[in-house]
C-alpha cells in the first residue's frame, strides 16, 4: 500500500501540450478514478505514473520515493491494459506467472502465487488454456490475475472494461470493486465512462484538456460540480442547462428565461455580466402533483414533446427557456406529447453557472 504524489507535472508530445500542470495526491489504499473525455490527458497521466511515459516537468513520487527516473519495472506497480495485453504464445498460467518469472522467482513460489490468484478470480480451470481460447471476460480476469500475483504497491487500470459488452462490464466492475476491498491496494483507474467512475471511485479526478477540473468523492463531485463542464460530464441523462438573464426582482435576484419564466435565485450573487446558466439534473426536475408551492420550490407547466418510458422511470422532454430539457418521473402516467405537464424542482438542487467562465457561482 502506498500513496502517490504528483506535483507540477507537465508533458508534451511534440508541440501538443498534453498535461498542463497536474498536482494530485492519491492517498494510500484509496481507489482513485481518473475520468474525462478522450484527449483530456488521463491515460497519459496514468502512463506517466507507470513510467511508460517520461516525466516532462514536475515530480512523481510513490511511497515517498521520487520515481521520475525509475524504469517501469523498478516502480513495483502493476497495470491492466485495455486490450488485456495477454501473450498469445503463453498459456494462461505462464501469462499470470510472467511478471514473477521476469523477476526470477523460484518455481514453487510462482506456482503458489499463480494458483492462489487463479483461485481468487475463479479461473483455476483455465490455467492450461491459451488466450485465444478465452472469452473477453476470462481474458480480463487473466489480465487482473497477472497484476495481483505480483503483489504490487500500486495497481493501475487503463480503461480495462471498454472492450467488454455491457453486461460483462457491469459484472467485472463489481469484481474490481471487490478486489479493491479485499486487497486494500492503492488503485488508480482510468475511464471515460462516468458510470464506472461514479460506482468504483473513492475519489474521482475529473480531467479536461490536460488539467484537473475537479476532484473529490463521487457524490461530492456529482452534487457540487465546480464547473459547468463537470456538471455536464457526470450524470445520465445529462444535466439540463438553461440560459437566462440576471434580473432584479425586488429584494432578491432572479433569472429570467427567454420564455418569460422568472426563477428566483436562492442567494444574491455578484452580477457578472447579464447572463447566467441554470443547471438542473433530470431527476431533480420531477412531476408536480401538489398544487401548493413549498418554500424554495419552482413550479413550471410545459407541453410534453417526447415521452421515453424505461420501465422503472420515464423521461419526459419539454422545452424550458428555449432549450430542450429532460425531466425524470417515477410514474408511467405522464401524459402524451402535446399535453401539458406540471413540473417542479427544488432550488437547492439548482446550480447556477457563469456562462463565460463556466464556474459554478451559487
Amino acid at each position: 500500500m502506498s500513496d502517490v504524489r504528483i506535483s507540477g507535472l507537465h508533458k508534451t508530445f511534440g508541440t501538443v501540450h498534453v498535461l498542463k500542470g497536474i498536482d494530485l495526491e492519491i492517498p494510500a489504499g484509496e481507489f482513485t478514478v481518473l475520468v474525462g473525455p478522450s484527449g483530456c490527458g488521463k491515460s497519459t497521466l496514468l502512463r506517466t505514473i507507470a513510467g511508460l511515459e517520461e516525466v516532462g516537468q514536475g515530480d512523481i513520487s510513490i511511497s515517498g520515493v521520487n520515481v521520475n527516473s525509475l524504469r517501469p519495472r523498478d516502480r513495483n506497480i502493476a497495470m491492466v491494459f485495455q486490450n488485456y495485453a495477454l501473450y498469445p504464445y503463453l498459456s494462461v498460467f505462464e501469462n499470470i506467472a510472467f511478471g514473477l518469472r521476469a523477476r526470477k522467482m523460484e518455481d514453487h513460489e510462482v506456482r503458489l502465487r499463480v494458483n492462489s490468484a487463479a483461485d481468487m478470480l475463479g479461473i483455476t480451470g483455465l490455467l492450461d488454456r491459451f488466450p485465444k481460447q478465452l472469452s473477453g471476460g476470462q481474458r480480463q480476469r487473466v489480465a487482473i490475475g497477472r497484476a495481483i500475483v505480483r503483489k504490487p504497491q500500486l495497481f493501475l487500470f487503463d480503461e480495462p472494461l471498454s472492450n467488454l459488452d455491457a453486461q460483462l462490464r457491469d459484472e467485472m466492475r463489481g469484481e474490481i470493486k471487490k478486489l479493491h476491498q479485499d486487497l486494500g491496494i492503492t488503485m488508480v483507474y482510468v475511464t471515460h465512462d462516468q458510470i464506472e467512475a461514479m460506482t468504483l471511485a473513492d475519489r474521482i479526478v475529473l480531467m479536461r484538456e490536460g488539467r484537473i477540473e475537479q476532484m473529490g468523492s463521487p457524490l461530492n463531485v456529482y452534487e457540487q460540480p465546480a464547473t459547468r463542464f463537470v456538471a455536464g460530464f457526470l450524470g445520465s441523462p445529462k444535466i439540463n442547462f438553461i440560459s437566462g438573464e440576471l434580473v432584479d426582482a425586488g429584494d432578491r435576484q432572479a433569472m429570467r428565461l427567454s420564455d418569460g419564466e422568472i426563477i428566483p435565485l436562492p442567494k444574491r450573487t455578484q452580477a457578472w455580466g447579464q447572463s447566467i446558466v441554470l443547471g438542473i439534473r433530470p431527476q431533480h426536475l420531477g412531476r408536480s402533483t401538489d398544487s401548493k408551492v413549498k418554500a424554495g420550490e419552482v413550479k413550471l407547466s410545459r407541453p410534453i414533446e417526447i415521452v421515453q418510458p424505461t420501465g422503472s422511470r420515464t423521461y419526459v422532454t419539454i422545452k424550458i427557456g428555449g432549450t430542450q430539457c429532460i425531466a425524470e418521473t417515477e410514474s408511467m402516467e405522464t401524459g402524451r406529447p402535446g399535453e401539458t405537464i406540471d413540473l417542479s424542482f427544488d432550488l437547492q438542487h439548482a446550480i447556477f453557472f457563469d456562462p463565460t467562465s463556466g464556474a459554478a457561482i451559487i
Partner: protein
Amino acid sequence: MTNLSVAATRRWKLAGRYGLASLLLVFFVFPIYWLFIISFKTPDEIFHFPPVWYPKSLQFANYAVLFKDGDAVSVLNSLILAGVSTVIAMIFGTMCAYSLVRFKTGGEDFAVWVISQRLMPPIAIIFPIFLLYVYLGWVDSYGGLIILYTAFNLPYVIWMMRGYIEDIPLELEESALVDGCSRWAVLWKVVFPMARTGLFATAVFTFVFAWNEFIFALVLTRTEVVTYTVQVTHYFGGQSNFWAKIAAMSALGTVPVFITVSLLQRFLVRGISMGAVKG
C-alpha cells in the same frame, strides 16, 4: 435457351482459360523440366540429335560424379554461408527493425538509407570490398563471405521485420515493462515470440537470397568456399560445356529452394514484394 447459351459461353471461356493457363505452364515449367531431365540422362541421350525429350531410365551417375569429385562440397558451402549469415542477419536486423519501429531511431532518413542499400548494384560495392578483403586476407574465407552476406541481406531483414513488428500491439510490450522486464527482456520474451511467423518467413527468403547469390561469391571465392552458383559456371567451357554437371549441380542447388518456397506459399508475395503486399 438464353440460359443454355450463357452456360455454354461460360464453359468455352473456362476452357479457353485452361488452354492459356496450360500454355503458360509449358513456357514457365518446361525449362525447369529440361534442366532436371538432363541431369538424369546418359551422355548419349544428352548429346543426341534430335534431342531426347525424356530419358529411358533415370540415371544418377551425373550426381554420383559430383560427389565423387568433391564438387558437391559447393552445395555444403552454400548451406554454411547462407545459413550462418541468415541467422546473424535475422538477429541483428530484427533488433534494428525494432528500434526503427518503436523509437523511430534515425527517423525517416535512416529508414530510406537502409532500404536504398538493398537496391544498390552489387558490382559497385564489390570492388572496394574486394580490395579491403585482399588487404585483410579474407578472400576465400567463410567469415569474409558470411559478413558480406549478412550485411547485404540486412536491409531486407530490417525492411520485412519492420512490417511484422509494426503489427505487434504496443500494450504487450508495455505490460512486460511494467511486469519487470528490461528492454532486452522485452525483445527476447515478447517481440521475438510475437513476430515468430514473420521471423520464419523472412529468414527463409533471406536464406534463399544468400543461397542464390552469385557475384560476391564469384569475386571473393577461389577454391575453399566456392558456392554452388559459382561451381555451375565452372562447367562452362567455350564450345564444350559439361552439360551433365551443369544440370546436376543446378538441380542440387535448386531443389532445396523449391521445397522451402513451396512450404511458404502464403508468405511468397509479401516476401518478394519487400512487404509491399501483405497477404
